[in-house]
């Protein structure tokens, strides 16, 4: 434990990076994932097909492969971004596929009668989505989205392999000097656990607050 306390400063900075990556990628994934779901349930076949392919691609390719491709293959194609930015973008598009699947299950909870009623009231498609479908779909899947966000925190550790100095990378460095892998990695594990617990509890409270009384 002393080994961790001696290196508190760089570790806290790295924890900050982990939290920042999670927040930025998390918000981006929620927005992108919701848009993908809207495309997925839209009446336009091309959009539906594109959204389906998007989800299948990102759910079926390992995140590490995506990260390595983005960091080492994109520069050959002429696109070079800072490492942390690259990691955030990859995490966001990857988790968006899982967000999309969660939100789609929320869409499925909306009774078809509501859509018919909305149409009968003269609402146009964008209005139906904005006023009827998306608000109810999101409220129904707060806990699953919380789980996706927890997975995002854990997945952010993979950024360590491509040179981003986040929590996992920082504890690796500390271990290199102190040579005490068990307390050091157990400590890091506890911090990840605390973040996951915080997200889980927050999701529980948000769910209670926004639950739809039926």
């Amino acid at each position, binding site marked *: 434990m002393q080994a961790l306390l001696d290196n508190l400063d760089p570790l806290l900075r790295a924890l900050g990076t982990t939290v920042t990556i999670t927040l930025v990628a998390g918000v981006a994934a929620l927005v992108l994932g919701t848009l993908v779901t809207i495309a997925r349930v839209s009446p336009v076949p091309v959009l539906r097909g594109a959204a389906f*392919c998007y989800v299948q691609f990102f759910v079926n390719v390992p995140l590490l492969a995506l990260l*390595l491709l983005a960091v080492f293959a994109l520069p050959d194609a002429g696109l070079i971004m800072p490492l942390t930015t690259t990691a955030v973008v990859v995490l966001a598009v990857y988790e968006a596929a899982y967000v999309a699947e969660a939100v789609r299950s929320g869409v499925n909870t909306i009774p078809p009668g509501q859509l018919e009623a909305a149409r009968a009231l003269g609402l146009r498609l964008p209005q139906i989505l904005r006023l009827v479908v998306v608000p109810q779909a999101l409220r129904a899947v707060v806990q699953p989205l919380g789980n996706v966000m927890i997975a995002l925190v854990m997945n952010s550790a993979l950024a360590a392999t491509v040179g981003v100095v986040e929590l996992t990378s920082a504890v690796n460095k500390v271990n*290199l000097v102190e040579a005490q892998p068990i307390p050091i990695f157990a400590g890091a594990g506890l911090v990840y656990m605390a973040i996951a617990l915080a997200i889980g509890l927050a999701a529980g409270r948000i769910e209670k607050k926004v639950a739809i009384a039926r």
Partner: protein
Amino acid sequence: MRSMLTRRRTPVLAALLTAVALTTAACSDGGSSDTGVPPADDTAAASGLEAVFADAPVADEADILPDSTMAAIKERGVLRVGAALDAPLLSQQDPSNPDEVSGFDIDLAKLLAIYILGEPSIEIVPPASETREALLANGTVDVVFNTYTITEERAEQISFAGPYFTSGLAVAVTADNDDISGIEDLGGKNVIVGANTPAVTAVPEEQPTAEVTSFATDPQAVQALVQGRGDAYVQDYILLATNAASNPDIKIVGDPFTAEPYGIGLKHDDADFKQFVNTWLETIQDEGQWAAVWEETLGTVSDSGAPTPPEIGSVPGS
């Protein structure tokens, strides 16, 4: 009917996309790891060392003390070694024949197995670099041959036999870079290092203003340097020499700026085993097997002959 059709067709498309992505990944990986090992030398190394292994020293029955670690290994019939599988010239697995692992570290491990068991019977436990101390402490491995730099912090957790080799960190830059001529020019620069290598701490010590970016493997770090993600790559001189020999895009500038004494990691406070391994090390240095292994592995990228091995126990922590 319509939805049935779409459902059947799209997974095929997704599978194709995945296949394309994976092939690209495989290509880039294969391309960069190829750079490490000159294939022609590999076969030479294997055949060249057969004779060395055949004549390698074997410990006297009396040296295998009863109830010692050596006796336990002999009883088991195999030496468990913590070692990398992706370190060219040090410990490299042959991609086409996974049973064939060769290099300076692993060939020495085979010599130690011969010394104890009479045959080069080893079992490799990778990846060892983050968890070497734990693997030794809980007995998963008997010894660690893993470019394991002897430090006093590490010596509190485990014991080191040796040192058996001394290397040092050097600086590599892209071939067209004429601004950097050594570690002294790295102040304020973005420096690439390998994760869990001594460079992670050595670079900030030499150049506090340098920004350090670490990558998980050596091929990744080389790729990052070539793509301009950093100004220089600091790594073990031998490894850089191997990279530079096969990759015209990078070059080594300046001399090594540290001395890294590599030790053989052993369980802490096992004085008998440490003494035993040190005796073995002296024996193979005196009888020439140490130099023969060096010639077949690290010697293939060096212009000079086998160096004088470092004196055993000459480093704090050993």
